[in-house]
């Protein structure tokens, strides 16, 4: 198994992704955590609630009556001056979206683990990325984790990224529903004290609770200011690109865990054919890459950690030598290409020597993602005559 952090078995624990994230939350010890249950996120807030109930973590949980109110209370608490986290999935994220846009525009550094799940309809509780893609244009930073260890590490890093003065944006940490939230893996946690030192205290920039200096937050913009404010927000979002790398470096310095760059590359150095995939599917893809390379095929994988802001230049550089790329999207954008494909296409457009690019839809609503499907994608793109239409993996005709 290849991973950035290879847990030392004697120091590791067997944890589900949800438990790993709950431990990260316990160690971060946010001031306020509005929670609302939704499968497959629920075990995160259940585990965390128990930790608070057992006195292992000094946070105030607000048991709100909907995700809309969870996000609204999160914004209220964040603007007030507290460090805030919440968590959700699927319909819950959909219900939060209105306020997620506002949280981003009000520059609220709220960290939100997402147990990725397909959006209704039809209603389905299993994994795909339609919920994360729905938040694509909200202004929130988005990170994707491949496994429970990454979900844990990136939840910790997300706090520093969100609260960085140049950024001050909500950060979604995506972990695949069930595949990661409910599956036990070997995870190596950091010592509590080390995490506390790494995240430090939250020092809000313009806290509402500073009654000595009253602020009007969330005012009404007419056409004479709205545009400028959105421009500032756009610039701040791009600042997250640099800060992301900075936080990775500091995390490595503090913990020795070397997450480096916007994405993990696997077998890509001399690859002729490449896969681009988000989340847990990358784990399966690595096994396929190993298998095909054993058979002499020059194939590789690029797994973006950062989806928003999207690291176009770095991705162009990483894929400049390959002949063809299969971009795997675990959700549809009806009437167009998949959202990840569009980012990759947009990244590669300025390249002089553009690889052939193909889009594969896979795994909707928790459909199993098999090594055969991934091998099929890597095989198909080797044909220069493969038509440029959407290819569907693992679907009945």
């Amino acid at each position: 198994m290849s991973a950035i952090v290879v847990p030392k078995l004697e120091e590791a624990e067997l944890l589900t992704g949800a438990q790993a994230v709950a431990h990260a939350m316990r160690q971060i010890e946010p001031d306020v955590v509005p929670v609302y249950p939704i499968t497959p996120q629920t075990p995160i807030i259940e585990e965390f609630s128990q930790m608070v109930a057992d006195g292992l973590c000094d946070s105030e949980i607000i048991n709100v009556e909907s995700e809309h109110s969870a996000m609204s209370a999160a914004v209220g608490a964040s603007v007030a001056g507290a460090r805030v986290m919440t968590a959700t999935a699927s319909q819950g994220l959909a219900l939060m979206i209105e306020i997620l846009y506002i949280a981003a525009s009000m520059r609220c550094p709220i960290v939100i683990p997402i147990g990725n799940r397909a959006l209704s309809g039809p209603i389905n509780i299993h994994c795909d990325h339609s919920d994360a893609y729905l938040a694509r244009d909200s202004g929130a930073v988005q990170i994707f984790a491949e496994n429970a260890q990454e979900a844990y590490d990136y939840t910790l890093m997300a706090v520093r990224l969100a609260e960085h003065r140049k950024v001050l944006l909500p950060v979604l940490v995506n972990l695949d529903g069930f595949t990661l939230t409910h599956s036990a893996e070997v995870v190596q946690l950091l010592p509590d004290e080390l995490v506390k030192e790494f995240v430090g205290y939250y020092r809000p920039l313009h806290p509402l609770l500073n009654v000595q200096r009253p602020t009007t937050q969330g005012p009404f913009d007419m056409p004479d200011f709205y545009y400028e404010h959105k421009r500032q927000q756009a610039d701040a979002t791009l600042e997250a690109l640099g800060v992301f790398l900075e936080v990775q470096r500091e995390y490595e310095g503090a913990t020795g865990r070397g997450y480096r760059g916007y994405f993990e590359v696997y077998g890509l150095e001399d690859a002729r054919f490449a896969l681009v995939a988000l989340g847990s599917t990358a784990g399966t893809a690595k096994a396929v890459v190993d298998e095909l390379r054993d058979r002499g095929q020059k194939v590789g994988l690029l797994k973006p950690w950062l989806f928003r802001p999207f690291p176009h230049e770095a991705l162009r550089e990483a894929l400049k030598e390959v002949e063809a790329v299969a971009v795997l999207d675990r959700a549809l954008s009806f009437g167009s290409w998949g959202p990840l494909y569009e980012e990759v296409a947009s990244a590669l457009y300025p390249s002089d020597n553009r690889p052939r690019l193909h889009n594969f839809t896979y795994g909707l609503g928790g459909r199993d993602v098999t090594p055969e499907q991934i091998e099929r994608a890597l095989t198909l793109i080797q044909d220069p005559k493969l038509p440029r239409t959407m290819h569907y993996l693992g679907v009945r005709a």
Partner: protein
Amino acid sequence: MGREGEIPMTVTNSNGNADSATATITRAVPRVKTLKELAAQEEREKRFQGGHSLCAGCSIPVMVRSVLNTIDIPVVVVNATGCLEVATTRYPTTAWNVPWLHVAFENAAAAASGVEVAFRVLKRKGRTAQELGFELPGEVRVVVFGGDGGTYDIGLQALSGALERGHRFTYICYDNEAYMNTGNQRSGATPPLAHTTTTPVGRESLGKLQQRKDLTEIAVAHHVPYVAQASISHWQDLVRKVEAALRADGPSFLNVLAPCQRGWGYEPCLTVEIARLAVETRFWPLYEVVEGEYRLNALPKKPKPVSEWLKTQKRFAHLLKPENRHLLDELQLQVDREWEKLLRRCEGRVLEV
């Protein structure tokens, strides 16, 4: 008003028979702030400034100033989207000299929950100015202002959740009985038969065909320590209610009648008079529910017919036509029935300022 002691009154019992009863009128203790004291507070802190763009004759700033000048300790205001928010915070200007937050239309109570909990937890953790970068106040009160659209309708779920969770905050609904910020569309607070732009009176229609919902009673059903109905016309009563709401150890809810000259159709100078008539005709009774116990706060000596109130507003003009006399009678019956119900709940307890 100004009476004290026992006076006879008639209460219709549940069988429809008239019972003679006694109302015990008590005077409010402690004494509420005088107009002079309110003015002094306004002069001192200027919590809400002029220069905003609320309409001439708008009742909302009257209410906001009464509320803010009543409170002596630091206050944080959370505002739902609506007239008050739009007209007082056009960037880069603001009418607010206290911390003020607006997030969206339907979530003021939820956002206020976050503010209230944030204050409580930072205080409990003993966060220092060095850690936070600012000095936490010793005490703070979270006050929400929302219109009837943002409270009766789209914000009801968030309000219900916040009341049920028991946050210490005061939610004040300024009820102008329709979506006035968007130009007078019907809400759950719009009285039956009122003309609005979405329940227009026409050849086939007589205005809103449904009842208004009784939000004050819905708030009472949450078993919170303090719920009251007030009117901008009775400012001393309002001031006392704000004080009582802030003293409550838990959520408090005030439903304040706030006439809108544009939507209701009357001369801007008549706002206070029309609000007063709503109380005197018993269309909008003043009462409070303290830890579940009802008290009437205005017992009109000679109640006026509801038509006295309706006839002041263009939105009810069609009801004054002779052919609609039966509708007017039906409305009067409803008002009487609601009043009787309220009297039974108050069991003779009357507390006037």
